């Protein structure tokens, strides 16, 4: 087989394609970089417990997707989890006293942030903090509390 220019270019392209596929796999499929949505305005919220919420999880209001979680970190001073999210510019009129909760989609599904609108006249702006938050429901804790309440009740009734 004669080595023509076409062959050389073809092989070069093939190798590039293969490496591009590997790079795509490493960056897009495995988590090497934090892909964040760049449009919209940023809002933070502090939670006692976020359960297994992950970056890029959905932010929903009334069940409608309005934004994405862009970052999760821990504030060692407040002993709370910090959730940063970006909300689409189309939803600029969310009351400032809205509350945020961590919900689970379905029984085993992905966790997401649900916003419930408040009644204030001022709106959430870029860099605002959502003051009212509700932690994720952790099954073990809920069970613990339930059992504790049950036994407390039980011991009371036997008295």
């Amino acid at each position, binding site marked *: *087989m004669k080595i023509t220019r076409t062959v050389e270019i073809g092989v070069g392209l093939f190798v590039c394609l293969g490496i591009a596929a590997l790079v*795509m796999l490493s960056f897009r499929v495995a988590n090497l970089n934090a892909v964040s949505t760049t449009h919209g305005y940023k809002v933070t919220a502090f939670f006692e417990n976020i359960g297994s919420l992950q970056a890029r999880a959905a932010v929903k209001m009334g069940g409608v997707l309005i934004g994405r979680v862009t970052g999760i970190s821990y504030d060692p001073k407040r002993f709370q989890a910090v959730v940063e999210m970006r909300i689409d510019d189309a939803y600029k009129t969310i009351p400032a006293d809205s509350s945020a909760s961590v919900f689970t989609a379905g029984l085993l599904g992905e966790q997401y942030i649900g916003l419930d609108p408040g009644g204030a006249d001022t709106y959430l702006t870029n860099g605002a903090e959502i003051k009212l938050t509700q932690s994720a429901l952790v099954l073990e804790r809920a069970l613990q509390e339930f059992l504790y309440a049950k036994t407390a009740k039980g011991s009371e009734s036997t008295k």
Partner: protein
Amino acid sequence: MTELLASLGRTSLASFERLGRGSLFFCAVVARLGTLLPRLELVLAQVWAVGVRSLVIIVVSGAFVGMVLALQGYNTLVTFGAAESLGVVVAKSLTRELGPVLAALLFAGRAGSALTAEIGLMRATEQLSALEMMAIDPLSRVVAPRFVAGIIALPLLAAIFTAVGIVGGYLCGVGLLGVDDGAFWSQMQSHVALGADIGNGVVVKSIIFGLVVTWIALFEGYDAIPTSEGVAAATTRTVVNSSLAVLGLDFVLTGLMFN
């Protein structure tokens, strides 16, 4: 009775003999790899033949495998309300198993058979003997470049297969079935590990498969009986043996890597 035992013994001795010859052939090729360094353009031409020209079948199959995975996975996952995990299912099965294995099987059918037929015909038409007559070593001039090209091409093809498959799964899952876009990628990213899944699965497995498939294909061609029937039988054996080797090895490798 003795006839049966004798034929059994003959068959097993013959297969041991082939295995031994194959291993010696492998060592001989590996020993000649150094002679390739000043003639890398030979490898280039073979990467074109076995790699670039297998691209179409790899890309098309990858896309369809990814799409089918998404369809099937969705039907099962949605019963548990876990359709968001579709990305993980598609990416994990493609990176760990389907990408390297299916790419290797397609490679054996598309490129391995061609290698066997080509070298078998060279043997049948006495081109290899002609090279020897001119004091050119056919192992280093004909076999070694193809061997290296196979080992280079299959990992790249497997990576392309996997990437295209994941995109196919994404198009089917998010575009057609309405799985959440962000959850698809975020769940995938949080569950797929770079070293364990992509490194072990796509890279290491496909390098090993590339080596085995190319070795079998080249040996079958080199060892073919120099008649048209012989070459035909050798081509069949290449596809059958390398497919079996890939599937068997995959089980062993999976056991070693992901137990």
